[in-house]
């Protein structure tokens, strides 16, 4: 005869186990809220204070001693130019290093050591990069307290991010694709150019943009190399001067950037300047979010055509 199962007991065990499910999901939601809500509150606070200040003049005025006239023209132009230098320096170097490590470098202890160090570099405090840049770029190479120095400093700072992103994107490419290319008679360079780079571009781009989004808010290393905190003129327009030497005048111009402008305003006693700082902060966060949005969009677009 069949033995009747003790359904009562089984159900009790399940109910007890499920209580933990409940408990954990509540805890999880709470933890999530801490992160999301605190960002929302910060952002909302900044938006409420700052958004009314965001008229056209705010973007087209230089800083001023009178809060109502002050604007972020020199700051956003400086940020854009510094970011341009950062991207132009970090992207090719980072991708080249990542591709070399994945596709060319022999796997031995030297490359192993380099790998570990690159990962560690990502964790070095940014002010240390500032000190390095002050000694190296500003004084040793004589680049001065310029857009070029700042851009290169930030490039160093995000280089590990770009390298790591490049390597991860490359590693996601199945080995059989590589073998298929080599079996056709391709050289390593042809394989990299025709397959590795195109198929990993989405991942690389995401890494680059996330790195740039980090760099855009960096203050410490920029202050260290000596960005000005009050600047009432623009650098020469890029590539507009007399060629060839004049085209690069902008690189050597003094500058300021958004976070420094904010820092400067928050340290003023007048409340009106705090409003300016909130407005500038709103613009900065918007820039960062826009970059991340772009990363997500590009990743979606580039991945669409890639199926293994």
């Amino acid at each position: 005869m069949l033995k009747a199962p003790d359904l009562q007991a089984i159900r009790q065990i399940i109910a007890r186990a499920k209580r933990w499910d409940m408990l954990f999901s509540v805890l999880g939601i709470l933890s999530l809220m801490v992160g999301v809500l605190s960002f929302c509150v910060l952002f909302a606070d900044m938006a409420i204070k700052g958004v009314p200040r965001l008229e056209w003049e705010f973007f087209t005025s230089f800083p001023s001693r009178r809060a109502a006239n002050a604007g972020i023209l020199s700051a956003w132009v400086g940020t854009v130019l510094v970011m341009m230098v950062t991207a132009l320096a970090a992207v090719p170097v980072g991708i080249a290093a990542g591709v070399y490590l994945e596709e060319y470098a022999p796997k031995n202890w030297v490359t192993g050591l380099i790998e570990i160090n690159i990962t560690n570099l990502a964790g070095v405090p940014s002010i240390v990069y500032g000190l390095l840049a002050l000694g190296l770029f500003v004084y040793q190479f004589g680049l001065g307290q310029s857009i070029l120095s700042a851009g290169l400093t930030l490039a160093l700072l995000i280089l590990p991010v770009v390298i790591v992103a490049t390597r991860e994107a490359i590693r996601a490419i199945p080995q059989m694709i590589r073998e298929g290319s080599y079996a056709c008679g391709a050289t390593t360079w042809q394989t990299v150019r025709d397959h590795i780079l195109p198929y990993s571009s989405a991942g690389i781009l995401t890494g680059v943009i996330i790195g740039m989004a980090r760099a855009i808010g960096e203050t410490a290393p920029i202050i260290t190399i000596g960005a000005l905190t009050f600047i009432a003129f623009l650098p020469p327009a890029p590539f507009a001067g007399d060629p060839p030497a004049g085209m690069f005048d902008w690189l050597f111009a003094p500058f300021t950037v958004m976070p420094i402008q904010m820092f400067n305003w928050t340290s003023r006693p007048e409340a009106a300047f705090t409003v300016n700082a909130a407005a500038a902060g709103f613009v900065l966060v918007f820039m960062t979010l826009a970059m991340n949005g772009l990363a997500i969009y590009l990743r979606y677009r580039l991945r669409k055509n890639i199926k293994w």
Partner: protein
Amino acid sequence: MLKPVTLVTPVTASAPGDDVAPVLKAEVKALDFYYGSFHALKGVNMPVYDRKVTSLIGPSGCGKSTLLRCFNRMHDLYPGNRYAGGGIVLQPDNTNLLSDDVDPIEVRMRISMVFQKPNPFPKTIFENVAYSLRVRGMRNKSELEDRVQSALKGAALWNEVKDRLGELGANLSGGQQQRLCIARALASDPELILFDEPTSALDPIATASIEELVMELKERVSILIVTHNMQQAARISDYAGYMYMGELIEFGVTDQIFIKPQKKATEDYITGRFG
């Protein structure tokens, strides 16, 4: 690094129905191969005949893929792999493919490969086939188009894809993808094509079409194929080699291997008494 090759393979009986003796396309001579310290191929001697299908059979892990991948120097891509003696001599120019003086890329330009799992590039159907021509520096558009078309025809895929050459290769069915890979291997007009279990990821109908294709291809090109499927080896190959634990136990005309094997081990494997 490689010792000079001295061993000569004994003359093998010609395939039934052939009046002329088969012509050698390549010859594996006393080949030893190591994965690190693992001795994966032990003194293998084997001929591959011109415009014939040669199959390699044997239990899993016996070294079939390892031997096949020596032919296009695939092992060179990974550190620690070592050709340790003997060689593979390609005819008619009598070149030892495994010699240090021979560039692996040159070898891969002469000998192409079709893999176990279809591996089209995430590019269009056209670009997939054109790739083996592009790496050879072909830029002329109309020439590329002609060659891609004839390769797709050769791979019995043209009629199915002629209106969708701009679509992604990955949109094709598994069997079509594998024929696309065959077209890619064929486009460069190779002397020998290597197949590593090309139908193991396919359904029976796609398998039948690939088998038919292989038998057509042997009119133009020599074929070396690894298969797990004994019926397949019997159906499509002219010569067969039985491998076990890194050694080539027996090699001969397929019918003879399947009907009257000389070695007890081969017979046991073929009749399913293996193990």
